[in-house]
């Protein structure tokens, strides 16, 4: 039976984004909201709103059984999980499978395969996708032997970690046994999983990821790559496509590796295969796969003209992919800035509150994905993302100039934002030259505000 009503189990800008595609497809929307989001823009745009619980996410957006009950009770045929929250929780996908609700995403087995770092790494090896030298270590003696083979510096990573959490850098192999013991104990406490593995530390790395779409039967295409190297404490701030300054051979290899990985899983829906590009060695290693739509998907949409949310829905509906690899063309450049309610002057502290005034820019090549309008609340319970301002142009310089003009015309009052910080980065010659590594933003911050000697 074709999908006609979708329950959206998310909030903020992605809820609004999914509603937009649903409307274009003529699909009805039911938005699951917490008590804090009853008056959000998404709640006003959705055909129906259901309050699923109190403001804290652990009591609302993170409750799979409540979400599925809400879908059943509102006669929704499908659930779109957005990103974050339950999007990569195999138990929600499995509940949907049990209740014959379409989960707009991969299968529960695929979520499990990529959610476990060691399984994901093993799949990469099986798919012939390069991984950083390293591997699992069950005992300290094993770690010492493997550490000698990899060489220092290296990273001790928690199997259950991710996004920068549960990682330790070891510069001297003499420190390795202590670091492994400590990392295992910390991982057990933080993730309920003591397993750790070792990986070579890449001194200068770029975060480059491949957007893929799979039909679930082994057909997989890519929609180019995104460079997300501008990060602060592993939080992405600026993303762009295509990745600047990459040799065409390396670019093609990375894209093919992403497709190979997803093909190995017979991946269903939209996903992203993340790689670390070792700048000095001109090599790349598999990092992880994100089994969901990503925050930064609009840069790919602007450069390819493909509506990724619509593709997700089409695949979930059993219609397969609407395009083949030869139909995909990455045209020009697109760059995105994540506008957060945080104060760069106070160590990027979140600044929840009420937005007194919100004016977003429009213009040639500009796109703004947001749930923030004048009067909107920024509750303290969730992440601080206010909007994504994305600019597209025939070349990178034009895209950057449009982005700069767009940010200058943006007016947000009532909460502090990082717009000024973005403008400073966009004006920085090193960023303008393109191809910065993941250590760039920390260096930029040190330059702008050198640690005091006093």
């Amino acid at each position, binding site marked *: 039976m074709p999908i006609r009503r979708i329950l959206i189990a998310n909030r903020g800008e992605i809820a609004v984004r999914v509603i937009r595609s649903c409307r274009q497809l003529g699909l009805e929307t039911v938005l699951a909201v917490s*008590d804090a989001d*009853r*008056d959000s*823009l998404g*709640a*006003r*745009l959705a*055909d*129906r*709103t*259901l*309050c*699923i*619980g*109190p403001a804290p996410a652990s009591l*609302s957006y993170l409750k799979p*059984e*409540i979400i*599925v*009950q*809400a879908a059943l*009770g*509102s006669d929704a045929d499908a659930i779109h999980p957005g990103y974050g929250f339950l999007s990569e929780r195999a138990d929600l996908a499995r*509940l949907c499978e049990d209740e014959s609700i379409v989960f707009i995403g991969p299968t529960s087995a695929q979520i499990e395969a990529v959610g476990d770092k060691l399984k994901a790494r093993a799949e990469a090896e099986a798919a012939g996708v390069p991984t950083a030298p390293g591997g699992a270590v069950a005992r300290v003696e094993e770690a010492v032997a493997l550490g000698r083979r990899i060489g220092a510096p290296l990273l001790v990573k928690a199997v259950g970690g991710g996004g920068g959490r549960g990682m330790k850098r070891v510069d001297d192999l003499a420190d390795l046994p202590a670091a492994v013991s400590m990392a295992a104990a910390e991982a057990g406490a933080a993730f309920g999983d003591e397993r750790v593995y070792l990986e070579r530390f890449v001194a200068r790395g770029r975060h480059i990821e491949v957007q893929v779409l799979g039909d679930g039967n082994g057909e997989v295409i890519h929609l180019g790559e995104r460079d997300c190297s501008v990060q602060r404490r592993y939080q992405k701030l600026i993303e762009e496509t295509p990745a600047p300054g990459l040799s065409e051979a390396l670019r093609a290899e990375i894209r093919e590796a992403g497709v190979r990985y997803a093909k190995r899983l017979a991946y269903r829906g939209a996903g992203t295969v993340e790689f670390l590009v070792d700048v000095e060695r001109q090599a790349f290693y598999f990092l992880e796969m994100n089994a969901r739509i990503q925050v930064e998907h609009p840069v790919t949409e602007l450069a390819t003209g493909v509506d990724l949310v619509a593709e997700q829905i089409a695949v979930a509906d059993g219609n397969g992919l609407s395009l083949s690899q030869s139909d995909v063309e990455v045209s020009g450049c697109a760059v995105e800035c994540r506008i957060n309610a945080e104060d760069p002057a106070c160590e990027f502290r979140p600044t929840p509150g*009420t937005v*007194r*005034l919100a004016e977003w820019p429009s213009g040639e090549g500009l796109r703004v994905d947001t749930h923030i*309008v*004048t*009067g*909107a609340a920024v509750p303290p319970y969730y992440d601080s993302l206010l909007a994504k301002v994305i600019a597209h142009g025939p070349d990178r310089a034009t895209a950057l100039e449009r982005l700069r003009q767009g940010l200058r015309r943006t007016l947000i009052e009532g909460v502090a934002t990082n717009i000024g910080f973005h403008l400073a980065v966009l004006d920085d010659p090193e960023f303008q030259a393109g191809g910065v590594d993941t250590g760039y933003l920390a260096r930029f911050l040190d330059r702008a505000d050198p640690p005091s000697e006093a």
Partner: protein
Amino acid sequence: MSLTSKDVAEIMRMLEASGFDSLTLEMDGVKLELNRSGATTPAVQARAPAPSPSPTLAPAHAHAQPSAAPAPAEAGLVEVTAPLLGIFYRTPRPGEPPFVEVGAKVQPQTVIGIIEVMKLMNSVSAGVCGEVVEVLAPSGVMVEYGQVLVRIRPEA
């Protein structure tokens, strides 16, 4: 610089979209005072049910209006709201009499209904001593978090 009629219209739109009721602007010897007509603070009221389906974007303040709220309740009543989203049942089993009817005397721990979430039954208790004066939620229908299930006149 002075204000054109276009500027004033723009400012009025901004006020309309804001959470404020009045605005005073003084510049270059011009004073503009705007008041939202009939601006009153909506009375504190029971949690309204989900907004009715609306394909268009309603202005922000429309949702503060007690439009879809149930008929105004008698003052001093205590509302028992759904502690979670799920299917509300007034009876312990199909065919059995309801947990409570209008007129029933309840204690804080008296069960007034159950809410089913994916086959898990959660009982809802009255929370106060008093008399049930109204049962709002029908049996077998999904209720949202915070939705009013029954109203109770507390014992003095």
